[in-house]
């Protein structure tokens, strides 16, 4: 069976006054049907721009320089803008970080949801409204008639994010891209939204690409994870495998830097140094400048080595272990 989404060798660059800034370099990932796929990394690692690339929403002067994005075997990059409009919010929907800036403040919530339905389906008003109300109900919003008639500012942050999720669900997509969907929310609300996402995946078989900087969120809901660093994939594995058995020095560093994993009173394991400004210009391993295990081979670019079932890591150390 073909995977739901197959990103192959994606490269993204921004043309700036200081030259070409290559922010995503050779990212490949595969999302299967009915799974929550986590994309984790620190700010500037290219996780958001990768997700925008899927729907061809990269802001200018950025553009995709190379690669393929196959959705059920269909190349999205070959589609025209008009064809993409049917894909966006249709088969693939998106939820952004801050629901308040994603909703239009001057229209009622119901009207905004109706717009989405009528963009994708030819159904009459009455039928459309019925569908909007049932979708609002399915994301556990109370008193849906009132919410339908509300403006975004009349709802709380959690309710707004539920409305965004309802908007994403309304045309029954196969894939939802959720870019930091809970970062702007409080923890108790975050837990509610994460649980809702998990339910959508389990009960309706919708795949979710969840972009986050928080490994705790990954652990709670994701089935599979890819760790990005400076525009490149450093490690991919099932969630349990990655957390129990991290192989790449960056993943190890990231996990060790989380306060909960350290003993109280002891210093946290920080990763020294900073993220490189233009990762595209680096000829060797992108993490070499901060890596505690750096050695002569790191001057070359490591490819992704398979180190187990569903586990790949881009580090020469792993190649030596697995291939002797």
């Amino acid at each position, binding site marked *: 069976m073909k995977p739901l989404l197959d990103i192959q060798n994606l490269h993204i660059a921004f043309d700036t006054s200081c030259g070409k800034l290559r922010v995503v370099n050779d990212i490949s990932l595969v999302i299967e049907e009915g799974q929550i796929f986590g994309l984790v990394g*620190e*700010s500037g690692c290219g996780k958001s721009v990768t997700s925008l690339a899927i729907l061809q929403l990269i802001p200018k002067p950025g553009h995709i320089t190379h690669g393929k994005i196959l959705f059920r075997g269909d190349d999205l990059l070959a589609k025209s803008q008009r064809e993409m409009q049917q894909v966006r919010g249709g088969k693939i929907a998106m939820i952004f970080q801050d629901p308040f800036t994603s909703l239009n403040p001057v229209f009622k919530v119901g009207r905004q949801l109706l717009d989405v339905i009528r963009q994708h389906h030819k159904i009459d008003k009455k039928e459309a409204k019925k569908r909007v109300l049932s979708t609002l109900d399915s994301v556990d919003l109370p008193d849906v008639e009132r919410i339908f008639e509300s403006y975004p500012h009349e709802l*709380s942050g*959690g*309710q707004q994010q539920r409305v965004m999720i309802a908007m994403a669900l309304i045309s029954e997509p196969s894939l939802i891209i959720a870019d930091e969907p809970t970062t702007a929310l*409080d*923890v*108790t*609300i*975050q*837990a*509610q939204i*994460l*649980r809702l996402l*998990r339910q959508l995946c*389990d009960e309706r078989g919708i795949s979710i690409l969840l972009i986050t*900087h*928080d*490994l*705790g*969120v*990954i*652990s*709670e*809901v994701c089935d599979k994870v890819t760790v990005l660093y400076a525009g490149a994939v450093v490690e991919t594995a099932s969630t349990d495998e990655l*957390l129990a058995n991290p192989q790449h020095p960056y993943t190890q*560093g*990231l*996990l060790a*830097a*989380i*306060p*909960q*994993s*350290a003993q*109280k009173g002891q*210093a*946290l*394991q*920080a*990763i*020294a140094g*900073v993220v490189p400004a233009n990762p595209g210009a680096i000829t060797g391993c992108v993490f070499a400048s901060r890596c505690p295990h750096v050695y002569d081979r790191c001057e070359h670019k490591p490819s992704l080595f398979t180190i187990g079932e569903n586990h790949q890591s881009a580090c020469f150390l792993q190649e030596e272990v697995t291939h002797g």
Partner: protein
Amino acid sequence: MDKQALVTVRGLVKHFPLPGGWLSGKRRIVQALDNINLDIVQGEVLGLVGESGCGKTTLGRCILQLIRPTEGSVQFDGDELTQLRGDTLRRKRAHMQIVFQNPLVSLSPRRTIQQSLTEPLSTHHMPREEWMPRIDALMQRVGLGIQHLDRYPHELSGGQLQRVSIARALLLEPKLLVLDEPTSALDVSVQAQIINLLDELRREIGLTYLFISHDLSVVEHLSDRIGVMYLGKLVEIGNTEQIMKQPSHPYTKALLQSVPRVGSRRMHEAPLLEGNVPSPINPPSGCRFHTRCPIAEAICQQSEPILEATGAAQWAACHLTIKETL
């Protein structure tokens, strides 16, 4: 308490009247803080957690008198701060400093790092010949060099800027440092660097911190004691270990349960807190948590619980846990 309290807060209330004139009838008021009592002991780190709008930032600012409280008293090092005005208050401020969440906003974009750092020294009339030695020493201590002094904020990374903010706060050798979400704008790997720095500084200089954050794991790592706030109320306070292992208040329990943790996978199960935080304009009667509390009873709607001991060094404001422990 055996050690001396550096800060004593009693009956602190802060109301913000909302805009809207006499035409619209009754003036609406945001009850940001309601009857807060707490001590910050010399040399300790008191963590303050809670969700947005719970009043933790307002409390930090009311202690420093950056916001004047509506009622109540704040004693710092023997002085009643709420009574101080003008120059006397400004002189006191040398002993209590604050580090804000976003260093890119809290440092002037049009000044070099050095200009930003000399500002507090000149305001507090330090002799000019002491300026540079102090600045150099502190810059080194926070892990930066003199080469950074001529830079502008936009030329430094978020982690470096937060180091500058910490250096600026320490220039006048304060006793109390209020840290308002100092690592929330930073990535995990950089966050760890800043937390380590704060922990070292505190041990070396014997500083007292009020550490405000929504991130429980960071607070747990750094704090000796933790206070939990909900809708302008302090609902629980106690030793970090006790709060984390045996929370008394149902809100603390729910908060701890909601934090996503590496290695856990509970999104299939666990009954979580339902609903949203009510508005502080018209907070619920009785216990402010009763609208969301999983164990609420009739009494919770009628009377307001006060902080009572639930353990050796732990206090919670809940009718039902008190009953349980008696």
